[in-house]
């Protein structure tokens, strides 16, 4: 039986992080079916495609749900963003305390605590 990881290459989580560190927000997509997945995995969940390739995200999405955490040390929002490619990710909307659900947003990579992370800005006049 062939060992699928005998080539000893890093897994999808590590590859995603490596791309981010080089300034690229990449998503996995099945070559055959075109389905996307996030967070990165070794297959498309439920359907099981393993013919995954890394493609650059369009970076556009909309706010699916949002909350503001109120703490003595300061408030910040936590949002679920639905990417134009389909999958959702947890993130933060920058430059505003909160924003309405449905707001169009665009991704940007910032460094926080020494790690690159994806955050989103509201898109001016975007719908």
């Amino acid at each position, binding site marked *: 039986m062939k060992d699928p990881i005998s080539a000893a290459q890093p897994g999808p989580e590590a590859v995603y992080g490596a791309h981010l560190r080089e300034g690229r927000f990449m998503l996995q997509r099945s070559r055959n079916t075109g389905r996307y997945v996030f967070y990165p995995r070794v297959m498309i969940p439920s359907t099981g495609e393993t013919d995954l390739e890394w493609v650059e995200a369009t970076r556009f999405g909309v706010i699916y749900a949002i909350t503001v955490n*109120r703490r003595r040390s300061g408030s910040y929002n936590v949002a679920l963003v639905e990417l134009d490619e389909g999958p959702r990710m947890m993130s933060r909307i920058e430059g505003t305390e909160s924003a309405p659900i449905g707001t169009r947003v665009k991704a940007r990579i910032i460094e926080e605590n020494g790690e690159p992370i994806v955050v989103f800005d509201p898109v001016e006049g975007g719908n």
Partner: protein
Amino acid sequence: MAHPVRGRTAVVGIGNAGAGEAPGRSAIELLAEASLAAIEDAGMTLPDIDAIFAATSSHAFPTLSVGEYLGIKPRFFDGTNVGGSSFEMHLLQAALALDAGLCDAALICYGSNQRTAGGRMVSMSEPQWHETPYKPRHPISAYALAASRHMHQYGTTREMLADVAVAARAWANLNPDAFAHGPLTRDEVLAAHMVSDPLTTLDCCLVTDGGGACVMVRADRARDLRQKPVYLLGAAGAQWHRSIVQMPDLTVTAASESGPRAFNMAGVGHSDVDLLMLYDAFTINTLLFLEDLGFCPKGEAGRFVADGAIAPGGRLAVNTNGGGLSCVHPGMNGMFLIIEAVTQLRGTAGARQQPNCNVALCHGNGLTLSSQVTALLGSAATL
């Protein structure tokens, strides 16, 4: 034809320990004291127990810890941990093991000292790497996100959420064992400290200590024991995600799958249900579960509860002990849903007793709306 599991087993003992505040007691001590109380309630003794079902927030290998502490070498054990709904799942696992003759007396148990040990949710839960950088507060941020979506899609308001907390407190005021007592108004809920929009501190469950346990045996033996047996009519679990990010639709929980399967096994309908015990970790939970379990249309639960429908004297009895919001919530509340349901089905709930209470639905929820387990319990009249 009745489902082969329906009515084959029964809860014959229930026990509480230190519900509220139990300073100086450890989680396993509370668990053991509740277990002894449940065994005593059943008119049994510790050596009678030959199966352990347990989950806690502080024991990685709960059946091992419980077995050692109590000195039981169980013939069967199951430590399924799907969060707060674990105990409803244990009802089903215990019923299957009992009915198959793999064991004769099952103990389902839980204990936590989270209030006096620090006042915070204790958790062994591993962080989700794709969430961690955004610092969600677990578990409230996930429920706040779900609430935001429900408000957006269905026009649910903070006032409607507050009405859930007000109803729970009104029930708690009828329960001398509830932790939170005293009047509570919608305005007080709205004016409380905002934790994670739109949820205030009064939209959140209590943080208490407490142990809880129950004992199950086969129905034929149950009839010879001390208490009125409470039969397991049906139960089913469903799980659709781990992280809230992966929940397909934040307004539809897996209760919409577990509920119909449990009702089907139980062979009862919604109009047969006399009591709903819904895991109310946050006010939004009660709304979601009323909808997903089919007690009102999707999106309508906010309006459903707005006229006192689930408060004492309303048209649907929900969380008659005061729920996690006002009675008890030691981290994982599923066990306490069962204890209140059994108390009502026995007819021993005092001032809050529901008349002619024969069918109770317990709905457990785990983690961030992640696991949903529905169990239907019934009195002898339902067999």
